[in-house]
């Protein structure tokens, strides 16, 4: 199998075949990432396209320090963040502790399929979706999230709490519906 390093080098020199190879290698994973950050599939496709164009345009600046997949993933997230900044106004209001947590939904999430979880995330309001993704799936802390989203740490925490609350409610509703059908 061709070394990833060679493919990256070929991509940097503008080799179209290498670019396609790289795309085929990473596109499914990155599309999964894009689907989590986008409000719908169409936006996810746009982000994937825009992200890969940035990858190929800037691949020459990749220094082989750290994971290449991480580098691409970061580009995809940045595209999503950029779009979020452009379209969704970030309110600077401190809203920590504003939302009451709802009842327990323990055990339900484990029983859901990936696609169902994705759908739940996509239904979150944009800012909550961003914070939830960054915290839960990218493993960032609130300090980091506050910096890249230009919000306070408190807001980040509040948004995360609110996102979890919404997800729990939704999953409880879903569970209730399933139970009533059965």
């Amino acid at each position, binding site marked *: 199998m061709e070394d990833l390093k060679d493919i990256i080098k070929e991509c940097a020199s*503008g080799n*179209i075949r290498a*670019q*396609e190879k790289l*795309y*085929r290698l990473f*596109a*499914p*994973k990155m*599309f*999964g990432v894009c*689907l*989590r950050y986008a409000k719908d599939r169409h936006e996810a*496709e746009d982000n*994937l*396209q825009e992200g*890969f*164009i940035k990858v*190929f*345009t800037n691949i020459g600046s990749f220094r082989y320090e750290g994971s290449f997949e991480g580098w691409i993933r970061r580009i995809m997230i940045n595209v999503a963040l950029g779009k979020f900044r452009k379209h969704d106004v970030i309110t600077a209001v401190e809203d920590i502790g504003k939302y009451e*947590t709802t009842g*327990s*939904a*323990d*055990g339900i*999430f*484990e029983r*859901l*399929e*990936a696609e169902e*979880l*994705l759908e739940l*995330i996509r239904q979150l309001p944009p800012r909550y979706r961003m914070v939830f993704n960054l915290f*839960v*799936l990218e493993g960032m802390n609130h300090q980091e999230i506050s910096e890249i989203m230009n919000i306070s740490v408190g807001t980040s925490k509040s948004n995360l709490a609110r996102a*979890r609350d919404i*997800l*729990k409610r939704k999953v409880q509703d879903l569970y209730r519906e399933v139970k009533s059908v059965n």
Partner: protein
Amino acid sequence: MMNEELNMDKAFREKLENYLAKPPDHIWNSINGQLGLNRKKIQMTWYSLAATAAVLVIALAAGWYFSRVLEDDTFKTADTKSESFNERSTAGDIINSDDEIIATDDVSAGAVPVTQFASAENESYFINKTEDQKLTDNLQPDEGIAVLAQQSMQLIDNIKAAFSFSDENITLADRKEQVISYPFESVDKNLVTENVILTGRNLSEKEPNWKMGLNISPGYSSYSASHGENYASNMTYSDHHGNSSVTGGFSLQYKAGKRWSIESGVSYAQNGHKSESAPQSFDVYAESDNLVPATERLYFNPEVDIADNRISMNSVAGIIDLKTVPQGAEMTANLEKADNYSTVLLTSGEFSQVFDFLEIPLYLRYLLIDSRIDVEVMGGVNTGFVVGNKAYIKNEYGEQNIGKTRDISPLNFSGTLGLGLTYAISKNISLALEPRVNYYLNSINSNPDVDFRPYRVGVYTGLYYEF
């Protein structure tokens, strides 16, 4: 509650962290297309940069060239004047600055290519201005001029004496040696040496004798023709118009004298004409067409000869052998005629006849005005090889090649006259604009009943390189 959140996060992480989803195929196509556009943009940026760089280089080279020309021109005057004047000023001489410098480039005429002869140590070579002033102050204007002329002659004699060149045919190299060995001051000696070297170098630079380039011209072509009576009686008399075409080629010129040059090369030219609506035979179709004003409808209605399994018609350039009946055309019998040409072809549209020539010119050019924009007259003959011979009908079925003209001579001769304006863009590159008239000296059709001589006019634009 904390555990519940942790479990929830864990469930999302486990199922979505490595989640794969196949993107639609069109995304790669879009990415590829976008990257292609980016590559083109980058290429265009490079081309733009290269073009800008080329323009800058040309501008710099032109600037350097023209500044060098200016330096060359001023070298013998301004620099030498100031230096020698300073030298002599210190020696206390009063010298008319007009008399200081005697410069000539005319080495070929036997004159000495020297700029400066002034020297404080060689006072005898110069005339003391204070004494001259006394003389001229008491003289009439004419007498004053005579005295000044005498003084100038005396100065020249002094210079001649100083160089004491007995042999007028002495070589430049010899002169250089002699000038350097003459006991002038160091500044003067340097000037003299530099000047001789410079003049020598300029002389050694060969004037460009050759010029080559490409030219192109939009043109208008038509013909003059006469026909035998028999031929003419069966010929289609119609309203003929000239044809527009593009002519161009490669030109090579050799400068044979100061004003004369010879030109040859190879060029492509097209001569043709069109024939518009005019009926020859008044059959039912043509007659109905004839009722319609010509500007509203074009049709072609010649008499044709159907014999020996071929169709032919008499055109102004000769007999055209039709390959086939054109699409959209109708054939009817002309009951008024009983000879060979008793059939009539009728089609709407326009008939045209075109001849392509490959011409090898031999021109003589004479330079009338030698200036920034040179003006030349030119004239000569072309050997024209017929490389294309076609006839067309253009109707609702498109432009159809219907056949070719019979008896066209493969080799013909034409004459050309023109007036050329040439503008020197740089030392070696020039742009030319040249209106020309070209007329075929012989009938290009060898049929004795047909005398067909095409002509064309055009304004040639050319880019030339001298070497």
